[in-house]
């Protein structure tokens, strides 16, 4: 019971005192949601309003919150409040968060597979849907990439050679360099750590730059846009959300870089670094899946 002396060795779990940051974060998310909702309406329906400003205010507040919360967190960690058990909590929490991200991407991959394997063949008359094709969409032919939709939208497909292939190589290398940065951290080789981490960040930025170029190419040369039917939809949502994750991952790595320079991590204790690198490897794996299913097949 609570009053008794513990007979076995246990670790003291750090339960923080009250903190103002979560509620600040809640207000931030509120502003972001209201702002994004209204901004969407205003942007697409040509209305006037405060949506954009609300969204911007929310994002700003979220940044303030993150800085404040993390600073708090780093201070606690640096003053030795944390135990191995707490470290396990953070690690497990991060892994489950990544699992939730996997499921988020799974929804869009699911849409891609459903469209390719079921919706489009059926529209083309496959299975017992001959009349769907005859009556509703006469002349429509099932194909992938869907460069000509039943409704008549025309576009061109994005090949996998060139930029996408280069980007794949870049991300794969970045995973390796990040791994060696981690090894450097664990073996207390500072130089290897900073150089490899720096290279990883650079590769991330190059990837993002090339991705922007690819989008420009898609919009300008191929006529492949977000509105180009299910092929364009899945292409832009999958690569877009992936790009967003790479952006976030790069920012995380940059923050880690500065913390490395400040000497925050030790060969044994570096949860933040570990989490950041897990995140980066996850984003890489998603890209490999993307390259395979969105570009090649």
């Amino acid at each position, binding site marked *: *019971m609570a*009053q*008794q*002396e*513990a007979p*076995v060795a246990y670790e003291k*779990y*750090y339960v*923080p*005192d*009250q*903190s*103002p*940051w*979560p*509620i600040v974060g*809640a*207000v931030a998310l*509120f502003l972001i*949601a*209201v702002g994004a*909702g*209204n901004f*969407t*309406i205003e*942007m*697409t*329906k040509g209305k006037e309003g405060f949506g954009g400003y609300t969204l911007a205010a929310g994002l700003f507040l979220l940044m303030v919150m993150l800085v404040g*919360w993390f600073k708090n967190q780093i201070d606690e960690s640096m*003053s030795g*409040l944390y135990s191995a058990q707490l470290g396990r*909590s953070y690690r*497990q*929490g991060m892994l489950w968060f990544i*699992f*939730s*991200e996997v*499921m*988020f991407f*799974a*929804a*869009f991959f*699911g*849409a891609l597979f*459903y*469209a390719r394997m079921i*919706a*489009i063949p*059926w*529209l083309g008359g496959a*299975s017992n849907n001959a009349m769907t094709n005859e009556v509703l969409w006469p002349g429509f032919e099932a194909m992938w990439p869907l460069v000509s*939709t039943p*409704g008549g939208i025309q576009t061109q497909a994005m090949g996998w050679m060139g930029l996408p292939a280069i980007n794949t190589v870049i991300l794969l290398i970045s995973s390796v360099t990040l791994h060696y940065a981690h090894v450097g951290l664990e073996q207390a080789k500072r130089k290897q750590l900073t150089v490899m981490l720096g290279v990883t960040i650079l590769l991330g930025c190059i990837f993002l730059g090339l991705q922007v170029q690819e989008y420009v190419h898609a919009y300008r040369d191929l006529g492949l846009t*977000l*509105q180009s*039917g*299910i*092929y364009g*939809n899945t292409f832009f*949502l999958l690569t877009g959300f992936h790009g967003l994750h790479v952006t976030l991952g790069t920012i995380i790595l940059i923050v880690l870089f500065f913390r490395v320079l400040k000497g925050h991590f030790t060969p044994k204790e570096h949860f933040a670094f570990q989490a950041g690198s897990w995140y980066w490897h996850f984003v890489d794996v998603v890209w490999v899946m993307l390259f395979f299913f969105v570009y090649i097949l």
Partner: protein
Amino acid sequence: MSTATEHVGHDAEHAHGEHHHGAPAGIKRWLFTTNHKDIGTLYLWFAFIMFLVGGAMAMVIRAELFQPGLQIVEPNFFNQMTTVHGLIMVFGAVMPAFTGLANWLIPMMIGAPDMALPRMNNWSFWILPFAFLILLSSLFVEGGGPAFGWTFYAPLSTTYSGDSTALFVFSVHIMGISSIMGAINVIVTIFNMRAPGMTWMKMPLFVWTWLITAFLLIAVMPVLAGAVTMVLTDKFFGTHFFDAAGGGDPVMFQHIFWFFGHPEVYIMILPAFGIISQIIPTFARKRLFGYASMVYATASIALLSFIVWAHHMFTTGMPLAAEMFFMFATMLISVPTGVKVFNWVATMWRGSMTFEVPMLFALAFIVLFTIGGLSGLMLAITPVDFQYHDTYFVVAHFHYVLVTGAVFSIMAAVYYWLPKWTGRMFDITLAKWHFWCSLISVNVLFFPMHFVGLAGMPRRIPDYALQFADFNKWISIGGFAFGLSQLIFLALLIKACRHQGEKVSDQVWEGAEGLEWEIPSPAPYHTFDTPPVIK
């Protein structure tokens, strides 16, 4: 009881005024709290308020349906009421109530000082009221709030919806973030914070069922986020995910939604199974029959719940093989569900039973949830569902499993643990009134829905054929009575929070076993700063 954490915490924490002993005062206590008991209380009150708000909308629905013809509200507003009622009850009442119970109970049951990630815990609660503020305010947007049903099928939510859809989408995103963070916290707490000796197979079943629920939440809430995102881009940014003209498919929406939706209904019932498995042994004064089989049954229900989603879509024209697969897979789930009901009954067999209020609710749960399970089994038979789909029979089914199932279990839980939380016995007379009024009215409310459903009355329509008039009158009367009965509960809860009533012992109930019954009543603000000894 000097706390170990406090000593460690001193040097870094002197910036904050408070110390670990008691609860800080004032509004800041609730806004800044990192205490699992405070956060549990917040969740529970929030859920109850949402229950009343969503209930008020149900009253509007039943008032309109009291007589055939259109009399009180516009059809479009009627649709907004059914939609927002469903969303509020699912995401605002049942789920937060279970999360509140998890917060209060899991650390006490496994001998942990708090949840593993206390600050995130606060965050995941406080974003919820904001999410519902957005959802409710969307009712006042030009063109009205969401009116496409809680299932927001495309093209209702894309082609035919109003501007407020954007607000709906982002409020659902926030609810999802909240659930995912809450679930991560629960899993990590259970994996990592059990007191030494609290092995997996010693964990109370409420903890087990919540562990599995949390896994389901992390697996499917992101899929819901994906679904609302596609609705958003389809409606506002010109994509064609759910539009055949662009190569998409409205039926694809249903696949994605129900891939989330079916596990979601288990998210709303597994913790209930856990609660009932705690309460029945206490008042039967016997150990739970078949503990291990309960654990395995819960796990198999959770796994199977991923492969049955299309039983909601039998009438969409899927290929025969798919219809057959989803029919048999769905029926398979009744096996582990049956195991559970069997175990509860076997626990009571030859027990020394007493009928305190939590036990009354638990018994009502077993009987009435089983009725809901049986109508579910009927709906799972594909050719039969062709007839029943989208009628009041489905409404009857899911209200039996959700109201007399999930909601009754929550009430049972509140009555069971409330004395532990407040240190005083609740007003038993009021509680019995609450139970009997609820029990009778809920059956007047939902049982006739089976009949009108079988006779073909469609759901989500503000008017109906004359032949359904008599039954609908009774349904509405039952509805108002059930709504009013909940005000008794409100009165009881207010009394309990004002510390009225007799003091209770640490064990509270004669047959209660488990760590939470060994600590003082009311449970101190911080428990288990030093891990307890598990026998």
